């Protein structure tokens, strides 16, 4: 028997919006007691949390691992090390690798590679269509049998509503989620940032908000007609949030995510053509930021996901038009949300855990984590007082493409506890 006693902790427990000053005792990976001032028993390993916050470990439903194909940007080891450092005990790996994960065999290969080499458990998503080409459905049943929990073509938005219709119909028998990236390529083609006064000033081709809005509207209309589980990735616009709100009210089975950077940054911040601010969908306006937060608070948007997209220095050092879209996010997500939303009183710890742990876990068919007696102990310890400067040296990811590079955020994950490690 091994027992550990966490003392001086502030614990995010069910039913309380703020962390409570409690102790927590774990025996063989299962929580045995959560109470104030638990008396240590002989043989207990005592852990002084120094007032830190103990919260259910996070789950990220949108991570690009890059292996196989772009191991210079990220590998299963480095990506999951970064996830663990960010407080995540589970991630969903996206299938836009090279070659793409579009067969049962590939899903099985990635899953077994992850089981052997990953720092934390990894769920795998497969492609919706073969080669992510948007034409022919990939072998969805094969992939489901190998454990895939979602099919998605990532940022290759489906041009063809017919393909989306058949995918939503076909997946219904396999309890598989269809992930869609909402876009209207004819409207966004060639764009590299949000279309508006800033894109005019900088002379960069714009991506209008309506490209996303029309995409969401179309995809949800199809889902309303044929059923299936649809998940909208990367929502970035106020109108997009509105659209989801309307279709949810009409009973469509839809979940939706947004990212920390779309919540916390906007298009005025890439003034000096910094490619670390180039992502798809692009950073939008302050009004969109506000609408995304409201959407999360009222349940229209179900979850936060980082969309962690590593790119090498070489790729991000290209000019703004040619540099790839995407930024890393696993290690900055919690400190950034803590600094800008929790410390400012816009979001509670309980809400954060609902959005960044419970909801994504449900999406991946996993039970939510509750820090209460009888439950497996799967938690992150967060020191809210730590000054956390995001430096290259400190990042576990192989890539450094984050807008927070060399900026200081408040708080740092100091430990991650997984049931299998105990």
């Amino acid at each position: 028997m091994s027992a550990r006693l966490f003392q001086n902790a502030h614990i995010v427990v069910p039913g309380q919006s703020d962390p409570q000053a409690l102790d927590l005792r774990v025996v063989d990976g299962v929580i045995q007691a959560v109470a104030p001032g638990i008396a240590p028993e002989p043989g207990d390993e005592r852990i002084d949390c120094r007032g830190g916050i103990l919260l259910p470990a996070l789950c990220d439903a949108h991570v690009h691992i890059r292996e196989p194909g772009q191991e210079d940007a990220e590998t299963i080891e480095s990506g999951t090390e970064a996830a663990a450092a960010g407080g995540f005990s589970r991630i969903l790996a996206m299938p836009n690798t090279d070659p793409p994960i579009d067969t049962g065999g590939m899903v099985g290969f990635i899953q077994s590679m992850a089981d052997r080499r990953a720092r934390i458990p990894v769920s795998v998503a497969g492609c919706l269509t073969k080669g992510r080409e948007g034409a022919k459905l990939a072998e969805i049943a094969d992939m489901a049998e190998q454990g895939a929990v979602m099919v998605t073509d990532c940022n290759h938005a489906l041009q063809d509503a017919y393909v989306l219709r058949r995918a939503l119909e076909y997946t219904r028998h396999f309890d598989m989620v269809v992930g869609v990236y909402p876009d209207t390529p004819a409207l966004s083609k060639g764009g590299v940032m949000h279309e508006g006064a800033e894109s005019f000033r900088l002379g960069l081709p714009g991506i209008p908000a309506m490209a996303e809005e029309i995409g969401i509207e179309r995809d949800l209309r199809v889902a309303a007609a044929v059923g299936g589980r649809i998940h909208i990735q990367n929502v970035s616009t106020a109108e997009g949030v509105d659209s989801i709100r309307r279709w949810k009210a009409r009973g469509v089975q839809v979940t939706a995510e947004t990212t920390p950077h779309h919540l916390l940054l906007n298009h005025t911040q890439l003034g000096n053509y910094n490619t670390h601010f180039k992502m798809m969908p692009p950073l939008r306006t302050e009004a969109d930021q506000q609408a995304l937060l409201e959407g999360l608070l009222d349940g229209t948007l179900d979850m936060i996901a980082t969309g962690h997209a590593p790119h090498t220095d070489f790729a991000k050092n290209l000019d703004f038009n040619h540099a790839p879209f995407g930024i890393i996010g696993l290690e900055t997500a919690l400190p950034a949300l803590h600094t800008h939303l929790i410390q400012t009183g816009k979001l509670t710890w309980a809400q954060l855990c609902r959005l960044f742990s419970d909801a994504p876990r449900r999406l991946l068919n996993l039970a939510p984590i509750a820090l209460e007696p009888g439950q497996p102990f799967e938690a992150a310890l967060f020191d809210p007082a730590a000054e956390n400067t995001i430096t290259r040296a400190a990042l576990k990811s192989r890539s450094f493409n984050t807008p927070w590079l060399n900026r200081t955020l408040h708080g740092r994950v100091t430990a991650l506890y997984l049931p299998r490690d105990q």
Partner: protein
Amino acid sequence: MKSVSHRKDLLSFDNMTREEALAILDTAKPFKDLFTRSVKKVPTLRGKTVLNLFYEPSTRTRTSFEIAAKRLSADVTNFAVSTSSVVKGESILDTIDTLQAMQVDYMIVRHGVSGVPEYIARHTKASVINAGDGHHAHPTQALLDAFTFREIYPDLQGKRIVVAGDILHSRVARSVFQLMHLLGVEVGTFGPATLIPPTIPDYVNVFTRFEEVLEFDPHVLYLLRLQLERQTANFFPSMREYHRVYGVTDERFRQIRERGMHIMHPGPVNRGVELVDDVMTYERTLINTQVENGIATRMAVLYHLTPEVKSRSHDTEETA
């Protein structure tokens, strides 16, 4: 002695004051006067190296900078950049590192993508002059236009200009808007609604009919070059219709002459599209003057910039 402070790069007018813009324009005048001497060269940049780094072909602008630099006695090198170097796995940064090692003092950069000169400027000690980037900015063009405007109207405060054509894709339009506004000129624009986005700066008056342009009565009508490929992207149905609705037709040219408006154009001109042929021989068409003034203005810009290569000591004013 009157003087202006040091600036390393000229990328756009974002961080420029009216005083600084006027200082550059004032400096261009004595440079233009040099052209009447038997020796047109001055030794100001003797021993300095100026590099033309053109990722987009442009014989006119490159030649103008080359003559400007040579008249300041600088050594000029044209660095031909293969557009395929990105494909070959060489980033702009690699190129800059190579050039930095060659001890270049000034880099003149033209690139098809907005922001590249700014990016290069951040990574080199050399002074960087933006010779046109994507749709973003073309500051020396706007300066030579303002210089040409000032030769006719020495005080630009309250004067009026209308920039006509494809604003959406024009770096010239953006820079001309910004500089003219900085100099107190009232700015208007005229062109197809597809090519004048609603996101243009608030100070620009948007005209939808040529009659409104006449009512505004600009001192200068500035015509932009229309890229012929815009037609295929459905920005307007045909060249014929563009000319009839937004170009300087024979009838409009008559009205322009009556009012004594001046015509500017950054060149090269599409005859029969932006303007009818007769405009080219009109005595108030300033297109050739703009080209001539380009050299003096670019000399003034080169004189005005200070590379970081050498640090400057404080006061050696007393050299008499």
